[in-house]
């Protein structure tokens, strides 16, 4: 990559990107903690997550302030402009990812990890896929990698499918004559599943932001949604 004649400009852009990367690291961590708070029924961990989310919100504002400063004072164009716009979009997505982790932690008190094992197993599978995609996405942002970004986009359908399976099982478990507490626990599991599904979507957004930053293109190809489109069809439409 070429260097700007004004070296402080390079530093400002690198600093902005660095801040996005470290925000990404915090988001990975907050999700690990949020799921752990549920699986270990740890109130303490859940509180820690809610606190960490506030910190992530503040970092979003810091990134916006820095990006606005760059836009106002440096008038970036071409790849510089895309980098700054991408950083802002990254910050927005990461902030929302943090919100969802917080939503999961808020459910911790209502979920007993020793009950509904079959649902929890599905949730953990969604979590593994979503977290691994998020980690790859942050890496692909740190050192831009279009191939990884495309793979992440393509894999989101798998997470959507797991969500649909979870939904089906939870609905089946919600018997009309269940005690209310039982139903609340199941609803909470469903909320967690929904947050994990959104986590996959936002990770896909990150992949698309990377593609935009590197190429200027806004990926338009409709993402294949698991469940709505059969697996066979979805594989065909990818070709």
């Amino acid at each position, binding site marked *: 990559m*070429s*260097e*700007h*004649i004004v070296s402080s400009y390079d530093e400002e852009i690198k600093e902005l990107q660095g801040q996005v990367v470290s925000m990404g690291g915090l988001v990975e961590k907050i999700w690990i903690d949020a799921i752990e708070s549920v699986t270990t029924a740890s109130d303490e961990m859940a509180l820690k997550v809610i606190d960490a989310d506030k910190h992530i919100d503040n970092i979003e504002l810091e990134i916006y302030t820095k990006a606005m400063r760059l836009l106002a004072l440096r008038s970036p164009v*071409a790849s*510089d402009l*895309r980098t700054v716009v991408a950083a802002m979009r990254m910050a927005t997505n990461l902030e929302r990812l943090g919100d969802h982790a917080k939503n999961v932690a808020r459910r911790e008190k209502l979920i007993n990890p020793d009950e509904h094992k079959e649902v929890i197993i599905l949730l953990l599978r969604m979590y593994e896929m979503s977290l691994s995609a998020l980690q790859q996405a942050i890496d692909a942002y740190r050192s831009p990698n279009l191939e990884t970004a495309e793979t992440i986009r393509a894999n989101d359908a798998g997470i959507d499918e797991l969500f649909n399976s979870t939904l089906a099982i939870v609905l089946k478990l919600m018997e009309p004559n269940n005690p209310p507490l039982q139903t609340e626990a199941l609803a909470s599991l469903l909320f967690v599943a929904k947050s994990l599904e959104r986590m996959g979507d936002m990770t896909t957004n990150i992949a698309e932001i990377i593609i935009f930053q590197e190429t200027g293109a806004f990926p338009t190809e409709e993402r294949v949604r698991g469940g709505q489109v059969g697996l066979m069809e979805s594989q065909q439409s990818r070709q």
Partner: protein
Amino acid sequence: MTIDSKIQVRNVNVYYGNAQALYDVNLDIKSKEITSLIGPSGCGKSTFLRCLNRMNDVIEGCRVEGNITIDGENIYSKDKDPVLLRARVGMVFQKPNPFPKSIFDNVAYGPRIHGLAANTTELREIVENSLEQAGLMDEVKDRLNESATGLSGGQQQRICIARAIAVSPEVILMDEPCSALDPIATARVEELMGNLSINYTIVIVTHSMQQAARVSTRTAFFHLGHLVECDETNKIFTTPNDKRTEDYITGKVG
């Protein structure tokens, strides 16, 4: 592409003595649109602009090769009169250069030498209409007989634009027309350019990329005498094709 292109430039090479200033330039300039020429100092922007109204003819040792047509007519053909060409293709320079004469005489100069007015009433009409189009009429209507050199820099530049308009050109070339102006005067001239592009084809050289971005529909990037790329301004400033363009507009060194 060729249908609405006003000016076609094909395989143009320009030399100053033995030194080559432009290399095989090909460009289509669209009618009634603003095209910006950008690029580092000495890359040949002014040289290129001067090709379009044969101002290079008057530069000692300058040789232009290739083909340039306006509305399909070869402007370098033997039977073309460069003086008439320059009435069709007007030019505004970097530093406002009004003559040390009255505001009226500055604008009336072209119509007079080209015999465009049959009488003084017509001449007055042309002058007033040109000042109007240059957005200057309100500011100078009470002092048309005062010296143009007493006006502010921005007003002087608009006098020069009025002077170019007065001979009813089809194309207006501007070589860094705002580089001596403050931001407000610059904004006025830029707004004026926007209005003029409804009726005229405008080609502007600018070292301000912000200006190119603000005023032009298309932008051409020159580098070391080569036309690197010409595309929609929005494309050039968001996703240029060529790395040299990218490096220049983002202020990078290779």
